[in-house]
């Protein structure tokens, strides 16, 4: 047996295995397929795809309810959407208590064996989506308007509790980011291979200015001016102190939050000094009378968020240099390979991650080095000996495949979105939140942890197998057994690609003064390709603040057509 294997060389076997394994990587996940079906109006097929892929009781039950919640939202079945989103919220709450047994098994098998618990920004997104659903129901049923607006405010109060806890933990945009605190000995050895911690500053999800802003709008709709003022103040402060920069938003967004704050202060009365201070800081407009009267806020959820994909690395021991070496195994289409290399460089290069991330977010990958880029950790004599004694070096003789995630690059395809009321253009929408950047930053922030866990998992698997081989005393088969272990580990290594896929890429918004009565809304989304997507609706304007939302799919297979063909409130 050994004589047969040796000429072929173990490395070749491992390479063949990796090729076979990698060929199956990065297949389109079911929830991506579902949202692609939904963007072409095939809601029933989309829902069936979700229901058949993600069971109501399995480890992916959260994904089932998140995706169905979005699909029903798009279908304007708001009550059903809220039922699913409510269940999703309950599942996230349950996950506060971490199942030690499940986590431990996942550490030896893979992250996909855990129950999907969502990301920290999913909970506020659920609250916002549910509130938009209730707001749409309020618009649809004028007789029960206050009842539905009250229900929307319940979501906003829950959101406030969540964000208060979040800002307590993260310090918000005023405080210090929390540290990692590595103690494990394997991790201490591996730590220099990972991204330097200071490269990952300023990308924490610390607070949510957009969620506070939506909260302010909804409180104002119900004429609860004190609560609206507090939420606008929180939104404006967070936008100003870092949220706008972090998510690449214009300063007009911050100014609009302050304009709203000034408006509710004037309505409530008694804030003369604060209004003067705002006037001095932001100039004219804060006290203008055109800010009074009924107002319409249009929210456009645009596009589809980027997909998580698998990225593979090979961890090996270099005996001659007494070093550990991580080599990226780029795979897939040329664009995917380029993205994987860029991701590797982003996490390990000593340049500013923030600048590179902004380029990545715009799809501007430039000319990255596609050569044999590696990250090398010289251990030195004493550490090398220590690693050898523990069995780490022997375990890595044939290398260990480490599977982590990366996020596909996304590009801004919308040139501008115009708001037309009763046949007249009134303004253009600004981007108020980038869910794509939020997802990207979350993925980058977790990449370090994910890689630590993946490295440790694969090393533990390799070392356990190595010790088992030694205990059998069959040293003649040692080489083959090590190869077999490497092959098995290469096959079982896998990254956790699960995410709420149907979220929009960007959220755009505009606010304009209107008069009470019925108004005809048209949104004209102009793409960089020259295509124009039109969406229309009519809406009854109320005395305070009226909210209207829509979803615009950029890649819809349907031809551009005017009017209601594309209307999806």
């Amino acid at each position, binding site marked *: 047996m050994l004589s047969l294997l040796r000429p072929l060389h173990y490395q070749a076997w491992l390479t063949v295995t990796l090729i076979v394994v990698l060929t199956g990587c990065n297949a389109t996940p079911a929830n991506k397929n579902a949202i692609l079906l939904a963007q072409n109006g095939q809601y029933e097929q989309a829902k069936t795809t979700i229901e058949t892929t993600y069971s109501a009781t399995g480890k992916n039950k959260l994904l089932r309810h998140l995706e169905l919640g979005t699909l029903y939202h798009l279908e304007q079945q708001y009550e059903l959407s809220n039922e699913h989103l*409510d269940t999703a919220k309950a599942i996230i709450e349950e996950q*506060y*208590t*971490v*199942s*030690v*047994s*499940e*986590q*431990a*098994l996942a*550490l*030896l098998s893979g992250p996909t064996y855990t129950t999907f618990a969502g990301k920290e920004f999913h909970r506020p997104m659920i609250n916002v989506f549910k509130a938009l659903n209730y707001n749409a129901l309020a618009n649809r049923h004028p007789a029960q308007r*206050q009842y539905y607006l*009250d*229900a929307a*405010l*319940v979501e906003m*109060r*829950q959101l*406030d*509790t969540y964000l*208060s*806890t979040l800002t*307590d933990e993260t310090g918000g945009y005023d405080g210090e980011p929390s540290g*990692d*605190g*590595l*103690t*494990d000995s*394997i*991790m201490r050895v591996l730590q220099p291979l990972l991204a330097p911690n200071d490269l990952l500053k300023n990308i924490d999800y610390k607070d949510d200015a957009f969620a506070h802003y939506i909260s302010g709008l909804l409180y104002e709709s119900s004429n609860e001016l004190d609560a609206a003022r507090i939420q606008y103040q929180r939104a404006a402060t967070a936008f100003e102190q870092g949220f706008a920069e972090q998510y690449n938003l214009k300063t007009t967004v911050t100014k609009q939050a302050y304009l709203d704050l000034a408006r509710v202060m004037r309505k409530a009365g008694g804030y003369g000094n604060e209004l003067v201070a705002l006037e001095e800081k932001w100039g004219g407009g804060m006290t203008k009378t055109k800010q009074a009267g009924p107002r319409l806020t249009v929210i456009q959820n645009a596009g589809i968020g980027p997909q998580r994909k698998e990225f593979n690395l090979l961890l090996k021991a270099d005996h001659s240099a007494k070093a550990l070496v991580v080599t990226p195994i780029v795979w897939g289409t040329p664009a995917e390979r380029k993205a994987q290399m860029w991701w590797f460089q982003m996490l390990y290069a000593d340049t500013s991650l923030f600048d590179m991330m902004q380029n990545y977010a715009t799809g501007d990958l430039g000319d990255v080095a596609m050569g044999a880029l590696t990250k090398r950790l010289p251990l030195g004599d004493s550490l090398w000996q220590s690693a050898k004694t523990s069995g780490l070096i022997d375990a890595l003789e044939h290398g260990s495949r480490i599977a982590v995630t990366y996020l596909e690059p996304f590009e801004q395809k919308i040139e501008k979105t115009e708001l037309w009321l009763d046949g007249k253009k009134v303004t253009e929408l600004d981007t108020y939140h980038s869910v794509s950047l939020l997802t990207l930053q979350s993925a980058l922030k977790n990449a370090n*942890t994910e890689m*630590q*866990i993946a490295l*440790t998992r694969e090393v*533990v698997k390799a070392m356990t197998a190595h010790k088992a081989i030694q205990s059998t005393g069959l040293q003649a088969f040692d080489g083959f057994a090590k190869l077999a272990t490497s092959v098995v580990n290469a096959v079982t290594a896998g990254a956790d690609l699960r995410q709420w896929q149907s979220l929009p890429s960007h959220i755009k918004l505009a606010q304009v003064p209107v008069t009470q009565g019925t108004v005809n809304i048209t949104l004209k989304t102009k793409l960089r390709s020259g295509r124009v997507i039109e969406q229309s609706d009519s809406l009854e304007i109320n005395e305070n603040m009226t909210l209207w939302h829509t979803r615009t799919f950029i890649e819809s297979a349907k031809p551009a057509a005017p009017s209601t063909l594309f209307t999806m409130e």
Partner: protein
Amino acid sequence: MNCKTTLLKLTPLVVACSLAITGCSSTKVQRVDANQEVALSDKWNGKDSQLVAEAMINDMLSFPWVNDHLQKEGSRPAIIIQSVRNKSHQHIAVDTFLNDLKRSILRSGQADFVANKDVRQEIRDERKDQELNASLETQNEMGQEQGADYALSGTINSFVDQQGGDRVTFYQVDLRLIDMTTNREVWNGQKKIQKLQERSRFGF
């Protein structure tokens, strides 16, 4: 991150334990008394609704306005529930709470109840139908409704304080009774409920 790092160290022990307890869980359903409190979370539940309604109506009927009305009008007061707005952080079935209020008022025997606007309209439609289709002896006359003397309204508010897995939720129900002739507030009641929920960070 810290949680996962800690778990790495506990892996061997936990794997053994988890394998040992695998298969122990099962689904079990049992019938329980509707009056028995089954609190699975700190959310507002049916028992809260029932207890608050009983306590507040008892308080309301202990105020002097009931006897004052009896002496002045010679009949039991008629009450209408206008609205109870949910301003809490939980979705509360306000209709259920209103029904608990109604039951408490009716059970006391000290006050009458007038149906709300939607129900009144349905009954009026029924009477119109009777005029056309029912026999003269069984028809009910229009214009004989009892008007409400007092209007009951209020709010449910809540505050939440959270630290780690511990959460204190404070519910406050405020109700007021207004004399519909004079707009005088004859009663103002308040009931508070505080709940503590403790969750552990780790479990099997």
